[in-house]
């Protein structure tokens, strides 16, 4: 992780450049599609921090994604907030607090129990929103006004503009990537890696491992909240299905498919899986078989995900996420 292989770095930069110029050529639909993919990529990055680096396999990560959407909808409906400067921090705070609570309980367990307890919390949130009339029940809520950036009442950027939304999302993606990378390179990141490899040893060395895991869980939850904020704002819709275990499973698929513990892999995974779904679902009604078979094939044949393909091409061995 310390240094990206040059080939990968080059590919990433080319990809970033392509994304930057994309709006100049793309039709509106593709603009929105890529925006959606970038939102998924942010979610995948946050999950990779948790799964790939801290070794905490969460099967309920979509809970924070969906919660962010609901928080945005409620802030707008009940508090009339539309400014990005006010809603985004508030939404992130809500997700952070939720992750703190869920994490505080969850990090006491590990392995499959961690998988299951995160699922349990996500299901609880799912049912909470599904059953509550105040939040629109199973039909969900609308976010009617897109967030705007204003200075002294003068509107600088409105996310109503799809191109502006695209660039804000791209910015959020790049920022998420850099922030997580920064965290991984920091002293904190080294502790997280050590905990993943051998938690009792890290504890015996003097680290209050639970605090570090909890901090990591909260960071990942807030980043998922960032993705959820953008995801809900993009189409202006939020409903319980955004928190369902299918969504959490899908996010895991994206991370593993892309290559967990590589950070850029999950971003690739988001692009590959979404585009594959777009393509195959148009070819056949039985497209879920194809996706299922694809997932199985990746698990069996390419356990390191797409990223391992890139890195293996270059080095002939799997990349080791070292602190």
């Amino acid at each position, binding site marked *: 992780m310390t240094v990206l292989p040059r080939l990968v770095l080059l590919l990433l930069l080319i990809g970033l450049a392509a994304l930057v110029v994309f709006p100049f*050529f*793309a*039709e*509106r*639909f*593709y603009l*929105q*599609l890529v925006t*959606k993919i970038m939102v998924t990529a942010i979610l995948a990055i946050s999950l990779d921090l948790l799964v790939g680096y801290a070794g905490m396999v969460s099967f309920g990560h979509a809970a924070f994604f969906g919660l962010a959407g609901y928080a945005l909808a409620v802030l707008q409906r009940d508090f009339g907030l539309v400014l990005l400067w006010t809603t985004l921090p508030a939404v992130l705070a809500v997700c952070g607090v939720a992750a703190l609570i869920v994490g505080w309980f969850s990090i006491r367990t590990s392995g499959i129990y961690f998988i299951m307890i995160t699922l349990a919390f996500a299901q609880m949130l799912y*049912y909470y929103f*599904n*059953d509550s*009339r105040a939040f*629109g*029940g*199973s*039909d*969900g809520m*609308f976010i009617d006004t897109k967030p705007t950036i204003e200075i002294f009442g003068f509107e600088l950027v409105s996310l109503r503009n799809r191109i502006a939304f695209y660039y804000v999302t791209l910015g959020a993606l790049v920022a998420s990537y850099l922030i997580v990378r920064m965290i991984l390179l920091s002293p904190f990141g080294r502790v997280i890696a050590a905990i993943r490899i051998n938690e009792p040893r890290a504890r015996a060395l003097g680290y209050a491992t639970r605090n570090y895991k909890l901090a990591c869980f909260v960071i990942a939850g807030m980043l998922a909240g960032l993705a959820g904020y953008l995801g809900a704002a*993009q*189409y*202006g*819709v939020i*409903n*319980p*299905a*955004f928190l*369902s275990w*299918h*969504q959490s499973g899908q996010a895991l698929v994206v991370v593993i498919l892309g290559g967990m513990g590589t950070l850029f892999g999950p971003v690739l995974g988001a692009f590959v899986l979404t585009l594959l779904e*777009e*393509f195959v*679902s*148009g*070819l*056949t*009604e*039985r*497209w*879920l078989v194809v996706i299922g078979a694809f997932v199985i094939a990746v698990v069996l044949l390419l356990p390191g995900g797409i990223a391992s393909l890139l890195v293996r091409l270059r080095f002939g061995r799997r990349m080791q996420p070292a602190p």
Partner: protein
Amino acid sequence: MPIKSISAATRRRFLKGAAAAAGAAVFIPAPFAIGQAAKVKLGVLLPYSGTYAALGHNITDAMILAINEAGGTLGGRPVEYVKVDSEADPSKAAANTNKLVVGEKVDFLTGPVHSGVAMAMAKIVREEGTITVVSNAGADAVTREMCAANIFRTSFSNWQTCFPMGPEMLKRGHKRVVSITWNYAAGQEMIGAFRESFAANGGTIVKEMLVPFPNVEFQALLTEIASLKPDAVFSFFAGGGAVKFVKDYAAAGLKTSIPLFGSGFLTDGTLPAQGAAAEGIVTTLHYADSLDNPVNKKFREAFKKATNRDADVYAVQGYDTGKLLMHGMTAVKGDTGAKKEIMAAMRGATLDSPRGKFTFSKAQNPVQDIYLREVKNGDNVVIGVAHKALADPARGCTLA
């Protein structure tokens, strides 16, 4: 059948994107400009996988049947069906709608089955202006708060299917009832409509039971119903849940002592699976398979011939969707550019449907007869009209 999968269009679109990138962008205006033969794009957003796949197929096939019966054209133009699998997943609804409306630039949009999907879909087409026909989802809001000039519905509002049952049950002397449904929006709307007419006329709902969706373990609540001893039970479930509820209800011995009423979906498309347990259940719905009118007979035969399946209420809704689109397009002779005229024609349509003639309310929801049906010998037999030409109150709809 001129069904086209979305991929061809997608691929073409990629090429088009590439062409645009090369600086050779060719802007193609409305297909109409090229000539009468240009295809009309009809977007279909329905579930083709998962729990609701059967509904999706019946709606689609019947809609195509209606259009094919009239020569396979809309206003003289051939039709290109662009189908997207909604998976009945509300979290994908917005993106899927977007794919059809923005990506495929369809002229018309129809679907979906799931109310949550319908809400997301309505939100987008309100902004985009695509003429949309909701062919199943009953969420009240679609033709209330969310109503718009370009949103039509050929199915029903949840309110409509249950509202007539209140007076009917009182007429039969059931004053104390228990209601039971899944705890989700459609269930709450249905029970709410029933409560509205039942309580207003002097009935008492002893208890409103809500089962977590899609939980199908009813035993505990059946025991409670047995101990509450109401005069009758009013319920709404659909699909697998409806089958299980009706069977459990009978198996618990409640059927003989406490009559079961419900929204028509309780016994529609589920009777073969429910068997004898469903005998005697009285429901209200805007259709019944055995409805005795020539249009229905003809439709059912044609559908059977075309698909080798029996038609049901969903197929009828699909069929009427096709009819409504034809009506609108015939009025403008296929000129999809004349949106206003198309919508006006659709709004003023009187459809001679298998369910009987119906018109559209100001909110563009059917004004239709709601039938009273009773299960006899494994069939929903129409025993009367519970409410003649019932219109949804359309509260909150601003369409004049």
